[in-house]
């Protein structure tokens, strides 16, 4: 199979829609095919990284457990956009472990394929 670097950007919040789960599933399939993507959380997507999340009331499975398991598939660290965090009044100490600050423009520039969720 051709080899390309893949960036998966999550820009939707974790509850109220299936975007985060579907983005993470895509990243996991990449890892299963031997191409672990870089995973970046931007915009409302940074809300998925908040620590101590429970499942929502909508019968969705929730994304926190999935996120915590990603390192088993070589998808680490969980990159976040600092500006998105600040815009939402959040600080890095509120995030789950394994998060790291990213520069979005650099990240998009250095990957062959960008998938946005």
């Amino acid at each position: 199979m051709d080899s390309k670097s893949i960036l998966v950007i999550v820009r939707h919040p974790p509850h109220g829609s299936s975007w985060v789960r579907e983005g993470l599933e895509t990243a996991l399939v990449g890892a299963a095919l031997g191409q672990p993507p870089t995973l970046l959380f931007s915009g409302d997507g940074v809300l998925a990284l908040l620590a101590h999340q429970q499942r929502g009331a909508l019968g969705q499975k929730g994304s926190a457990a999935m996120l915590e398991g990603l390192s088993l598939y070589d998808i680490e660290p969980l990159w976040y956009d600092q500006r998105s965090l600040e815009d939402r009044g959040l600080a890095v100490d509120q995030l789950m472990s394994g998060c790291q600050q990213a520069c979005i423009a650099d990240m998009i520039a250095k990957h062959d394929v960008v998938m946005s969720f």
Partner: protein
Amino acid sequence: MVSQGLTYALMVQGSPYSQQASHSALRFAEALPAQGHRVAAVFFYHDGVYNAASMMTPPRDEPHLLERWRALYQTQQCELLVCVASAVRRGLLDEGEARRHGHSHPTLEAPFEMTGLGQLMQAALHHDRLITFAP
């Protein structure tokens, strides 16, 4: 202008008629040959799977998106790939899935094909460009 044409893969995540994503994806795909390129694969994910609904019946004075996708398949020989996990839970089943789940009629037909996320990865890795059309 590029002398050697590129192959494009598109990911469509928006529902037809309620979001712009599928309209934009079609317009983009239909414009590629004029620039010497072609769309090789379209992957429908999230609410984008509704683009494959075989009974889609829009009013006559609106674009018929299902027919536009079929025409795209005819003119550019592109694969129309539908994520099975997104589709089945939304009620879009091909003949095999319909039979397997005890339904009398399929709601998704060729040229659309049921596939998995692995096909999205293959398309992203194999073709020259991947463009996401999301709401």
